[in-house]
């Protein structure tokens, strides 16, 4: 793959704060026009990594290239950043705030006004344009914060936990916008620990744990490498079968169905036969891919 198609390239980047190493020898390639999920538990080093990409902190060692160049103010203006810790000026009118954030990215002039209107309409907050942000609900403020990161039409958008605290309707709305931006050729780095969300929109993922990369690659490949070793079962009776450690290593029971992770070397066909033999009435028996959540938990709890 050509270097020009890599939007962000981290090469053996290390950052420590005193004794504590937040990011260790991290190398990453974020490909242009894709949604890149930066995943990991709290304290894994996601925010530190992002802060280095947006030039808030400098790495102790290693190099970071954006659009094939070293960081400089002009490159910085091509980034849109929505941090996890974010806010708005309480007493400032929404339109003034958006213009301020646009100007800080060197996006000025008449065009800003049109963009402000366009984005407010898109997140359905047009009538709030001249209100002060303290008059808005938390969810509305969050949508405004989202606009501050995209108002200047950045080529690289970095979103740190963008959906936390939003209701499902607004999550859906923002998700659509993110996917639209991807279709428009923007590169998106998406940091979260909500795996269900990441699973739905990420093309590539990188899992960080304890300051280091656990794995990186496309979501498809990762899922494939884990194989289809999970079965969703809905049945009446036959409970004992699912608890046989020779067949099933782990069972998670939901309200009306159970998810069984097959034991190493066990065959799903054998499990199905055993269930039928035990007289269970089977409503559903389906081979499923492991969810990203399962992969995440497996990887993170795996001894290093």
């Amino acid at each position, binding site marked *: 793959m050509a270097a020009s198609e890599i939007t962000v390239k981290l090469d053996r980047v290390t950052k420590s704060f005193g004794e504590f190493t937040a990011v260790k020898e991290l190398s990453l390639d974020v490909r242009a026009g894709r949604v890149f999920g930066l995943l990991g538990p709290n304290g894994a080093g996601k925010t530190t990594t992002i802060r280095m990409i947006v*030039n808030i902190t400098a790495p102790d060692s290693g190099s970071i290239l954006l659009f094939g160049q070293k960081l400089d103010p002009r490159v910085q203006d091509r980034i849109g950043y929505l*941090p996890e810790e974010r806010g708005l000026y309480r007493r400032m009118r929404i339109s003034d705030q958006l213009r301020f*954030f646009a*100007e800080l990215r060197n996006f000025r002039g008449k065009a800003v006004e049109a963009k402000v209107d366009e984005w407010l309409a898109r997140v359905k907050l047009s009538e709030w344009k001249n209100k002060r942000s303290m008059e808005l609900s938390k969810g509305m403020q969050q949508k405004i914060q989202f606009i501050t990161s995209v108002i200047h039409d950045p080529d690289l958008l970095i979103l740190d936990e963008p959906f936390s605290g939003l209701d499902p309707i607004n999550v859906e709305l923002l998700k659509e916008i993110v996917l639209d931006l991807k279709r428009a050729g923007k590169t998106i780095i998406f940091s979260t620990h909500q795996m269900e969300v990441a699973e739905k929109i990420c093309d590539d993922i990188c899992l960080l744990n304890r300051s280091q990369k656990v794995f990186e690659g496309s979501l498809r490949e990762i899922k494939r490498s884990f194989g289809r070793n999970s079965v969703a079962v809905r049945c009446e009776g036959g409970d004992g079968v699912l608890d046989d450690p020779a067949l099933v290593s782990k069972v998670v029971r939901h309200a009306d169905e159970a998810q069984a992770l097959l034991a190493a070397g066990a065959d799903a066909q054998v499990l199905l036969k055993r269930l039928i033999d035990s007289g269970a009435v089977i409503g559903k028996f389906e081979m499923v891919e492991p969810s990203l959540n399962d992969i995440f938990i497996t990887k993170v709890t795996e001894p290093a």
Partner: protein
Amino acid sequence: MRKFLTVVKREYVQRVRAKMFIVSTILLPLVMSLFGIVPAIILGIKTPPLRVAVVDRTGKMFGQLRQSFANEQSEDAASGNTNDRRDISRLAAGDFRFEEVSAGDRSDEQIRADLDQRLRAREIDGYIILAPDFLTTGKTEFFNRNPGDVFSRGRLVSALNRALRQQRLIEANVDSRTREGLFEPVQVQAVKIGAGGRERDSGESFALVFGVGFVMYIAILMYGQIVLGAVIEEKETRIAEILFSSVKPFTLMMGKLVGVSLVALTQLTIWGLAFSVFALYGAGVLASRGISANIPNIPFSQYIYFGLFFLLGYFVYATIYALVGSMVTTAQEGGQLAVPIVLILVVSFYVFFPVSRAPDSTFSFWVSMIPLSAPIAMLVRIVTQTPPFWQIALSLLIGFGSVLAIMWVAARVYRVGMLMYGKRASIPEALRWVRQA
């Protein structure tokens, strides 16, 4: 640079447009002038004159007492002192209306019983009985219903005093011309020796110096707190992180300091203009109503010095405030940590008094060189007894040099502190941030 201007513009426009700015611009001068005018008005409220009955057994004093009150007015005018303390007590004291009660051949007891009754009936407010030997003993008693009115009693006593002295001189056969001469009050006129020669001065320049020092103190305090609040707001609302991804922390901090300083200069200019307008027209209006308000003539250079030293004071204190703001997590914490700064500022305001008394002392020299106290101390020196130019220049040089040093330190604490959420940074921690490149 353009981003710096964006930050400056936001700070300026948002603040100048705020109601708070408009209110404080109008209100502060109003409050300050109220402090000056209201007491005078209240003290000047006319109360009905006190009716005092005088039983004059000497047969000579009643006339003198009346005369003494009549002379009081003209004496004040002659002394040229309009500001001294006596004036205030005069305003606070009531007027008197005397009534001579002839003793006839009644005894003191009878007269007192009679007058007590009239006192209770509220026909009179008090009485004095002057014994026949009053001229030698000088002792008497003032019977009244309201002994708490010390001002009126004081006025009565001093009038009686003058009357007694006058009468004693008459008894000693001193002729009337000599007597008048003896009572002629001294006339002291303060004359300021300035670079431009001699100028009359009757206390206005003290008021001016005090006013200037006070405005300086209030403005530095107020705008320092505004910077503190602005920094804490960006930290508390977590705007800092978005900002830091597009502007350098140093640019942001400087933009904030400069933006707020422009707001301050705008407000001070409005006040300065309002004062000048008042000086030109208001004083004339007041004078036409008989209120003397000598507005001192302020040379233009002093406005410039005021501006320069205000900026010095502002940047010294506001930068420290910005540093403190980035270390704390809430406005309350900020208020606590800012207490020592306020104390230093208060102390450097009180330095005003020794400096205005001896503007060219060694003490005055040093306090006008230390950046924390220089803004007020040097300005007081300039207004009272302008020091050599090299001293002013040196003070500004040391001051602005220190400002740069403080900014360097503050910027280092700021860029780390602004992204530290959760707990207040300790001083050793902040020092470590300063050492880290």
